[in-house]
């Protein structure tokens, strides 16, 4: 008897819940967000274009390098340096997508492991005998290596004339081109379909990868590009030469471009992005839209970085207050990106079993 009465309870509750909804007329689903459309936009409107831009800039780099090789002069060398800076700027827009093909090909490690190992580079250039894909060269490749090669040897024309030097520049261009081509080919072959059809929220789903890697890359800018040079890990003792481009001194513009790219990633370019997803589920932060709070956060970081007048190499010592302001601004945004956003989206970031506590 008792048990029969207990059985009625669930039915009663279900009835109650339904009847309480009746008043508002037929209920619209709260979440009508088309995740596949967002992922399609991220792939074809943001990620692949970023890779293709980088590809194009690398092709141009090869062209100006060929011109310089054929006619070594101050002006052809300057053109080479300028194009390197373009490639580096295009790279930071690709940095946040280190999953799938990029992860398999170690794209970020290949393009942008810094600080670069100058002793290893010197040794490689001197010997002319190296395998850039070997482990001992993992810190002596990519854009930071070019930054060193193209700007540090400046004073010594004799070195620049060496065939070994030219060969090392070429080997790095080849390595980056080959790695990037493999990534782009994979996206164009089948990965785009895999990416856009993985619409869940579990670890490894595309939304989880995007959110997770956006966070990882954001912390990379905060820590590696700004925090470490500013002495955040070393009791305030600055380490200027740990900036991203210590020789070409593009560190500040790279940091700004990087933050802009991360904002663009969050906003889905001009299409559907994580911001729209957050708006759709009405995610709020202190009463305002969470997406707006995050976009404002990105804008504030950009403003604070732009307020630094010299390159970070100099600024970490000479403009400590401005650098500190930029760092604090970046710090404030981490909280929204790393706690509020994934939590509101119900995203799992780790693969391990959990029971939600």
């Amino acid at each position: 008897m008792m048990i029969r009465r207990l059985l009625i309870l669930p039915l009663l509750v279900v009835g109650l819940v339904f009847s309480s909804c009746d008043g508002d007329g037929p209920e619209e689903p709260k979440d009508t967000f088309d995740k596949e459309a967002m992922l399609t936009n991220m792939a074809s409107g943001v990620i692949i274009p970023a890779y293709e831009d980088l590809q194009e800039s690398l092709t141009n780099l090869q062209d100006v390098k060929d011109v310089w090789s054929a006619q070594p002069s101050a002006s052809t060398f300057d053109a080479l340096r300028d194009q390197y800076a373009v490639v580096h700027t295009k790279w930071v827009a690709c940095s946040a997508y280190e999953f799938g093909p990029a992860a398999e090909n170690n794209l970020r490690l290949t393009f942008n492991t810094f600080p670069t190992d100058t002793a290893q580079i010197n040794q490689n250039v001197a010997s002319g005998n190296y395998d850039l894909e070997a482990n001992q060269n993992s810190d002596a490749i990519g854009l930071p290596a070019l930054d060193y090669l193209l700007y540090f040897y400046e004073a010594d024309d004799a070195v620049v004339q060496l065939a070994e030097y030219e060969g090392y520049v070429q080997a790095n261009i080849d390595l980056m081109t080959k790695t990037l081509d493999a990534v782009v080919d994979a996206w164009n072959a089948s990965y785009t379909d895999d990416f856009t059809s993985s619409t869940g929220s579990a670890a490894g789903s595309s939304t989880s990868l995007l959110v997770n890697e956006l966070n990882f890359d954001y912390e990379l800018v905060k820590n590696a590009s700004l925090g470490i040079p500013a002495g955040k890990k070393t009791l305030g003792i600055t380490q200027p030469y740990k900036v991203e481009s210590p020789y070409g001194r593009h560190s500040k513009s790279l940091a700004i471009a990087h933050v802009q790219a991360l904002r663009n990633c969050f906003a889905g370019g001009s299409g559907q992005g994580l911001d729209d997803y957050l708006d759709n589920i009405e995610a709020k932060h202190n009463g305002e839209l969470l997406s707006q709070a995050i976009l404002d956060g990105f804008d504030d970081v950009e403003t604070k970085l732009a307020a630094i007048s010299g390159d970070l190499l100099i600024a970490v010592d000479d403009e400590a207050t401005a650098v500190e302001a930029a760092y604090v601004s970046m710090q404030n945004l981490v909280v929204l990106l790393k706690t509020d956003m994934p939590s509101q989206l119900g995203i799992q970031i780790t693969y391990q079993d959990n029971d939600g506590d």
Partner: protein
Amino acid sequence: MAIKNITHNLFSRKVSIAPLVTFRVLFGLVMLISMVRFWANGWIDMQYLQSAMQFKFFGFDWVAMPPGEWVYVLFATCALSCVMIALGLFYRVAAVLFFITFTYIELLDATFYLNHYYFISLVGLLLVFLPANKKASLDVYLGLTSKADHIPVLAQNLVMFHLGLVYFFAGVAKLNSDWLFHAMPLAIWLPAQDTLPVIGGLLKYEATAYIMSWAGAIYDLTIPFFLLSKRFRWPAYAAVVGFHVVTWAMFQIGMFPFIMIASTLIFFSAAFHQRLHALVGIRYGETESEPTMGVEWTTQPLVRLAVVAVICFQLVFPFRHMMYDGNLYWHEQGYRFGWRVMLTEKAGYAQFKVEDTQGRFIYVDNRDFLMPVQEKMMSTQPDFMLQYAQFLKDEYTAQGVDVKAVTTEAFVTLNGRSSRPFIDSSVDLSSIEDSWQQKDWILPFKSDKG
């Protein structure tokens, strides 16, 4: 007289061993699969060999990581003991081995704490004392133990008590305003699963989150009783299977659904289990005159006292959070070992700072020391923060830093609320010893919803 009847029914009445045998075999097999799955996923390496530090349970900081690759031996031994339990080979030794190895693994790093691991440890300990190898076992076949078709009911009751515990307390934990009146965290989790086949379309509706929250609470609170009733056992078991399959499809909860689906079979009648066993040629005697096990041990005062003590402990321990002020889901003091499952959507961020005696700071990048899952867990669990602060103090002292204090600026979001400051950032966490005392350096919970 009445009391005698009750104790007879709870302790000494003779019942068929069949349900306990099914339980022993299935538990051994499911746990074997669980260990193999863990190994195959590469989690032994990922969780136990890659980490620079491990978080410990309060009182268990002495549990040391086995040297080098020996943790694999630990897992292999545990898996082997599962096989031996299922086969009923050297059963008592196997159960001891299982309990020790499994519990040891769980104590290695509290990051990976799950309620069902705690449950498995408790069952492992229980199995040591139960006569589950007295039928359909290699021990009987080899003559290592006497055969029994009937055993005292206590054995079965203890298993059922522990199963009921998991459900009932999970239900009690759901009786909070977030769960019942805001459908949190299901209102976040369900829409995120809207691409699931069949039920995906329904998960977009807010009403679905409310219905499932209430249904889940009622299910957890009542299912043990429905399973006990002869009349509702089949529909109740169908509900068990349905509930666990749905949660398995939606959440990353690992082996828990299968452990429960297999274990709750013990609620079925002896006749059911005997028919099941007949399928593989295991026969049971018709009457109690068949080989049977003595019931005398169940009347010993020491045994009864132990049983009562275990029951009292399990009924009281989950409520220890009442010793602490504030919102349990926020401060998590007394949270673990209380069957609180899938109750919170919680995320945090903790920026630790190491200050030296000259007032200079090191901003800690957690990824330098913690795996992603460790960072995630540490960022919302204050006792882990104490351990981490201590670790950082030792780490940087070893690097030659004259450490004065380790503080943190931490933010936590709970069940969809805006992230809020979590920890008093002026407190030197490295100078605090963990204890049962109220952690008054956790900032009070503030809600921006009703």
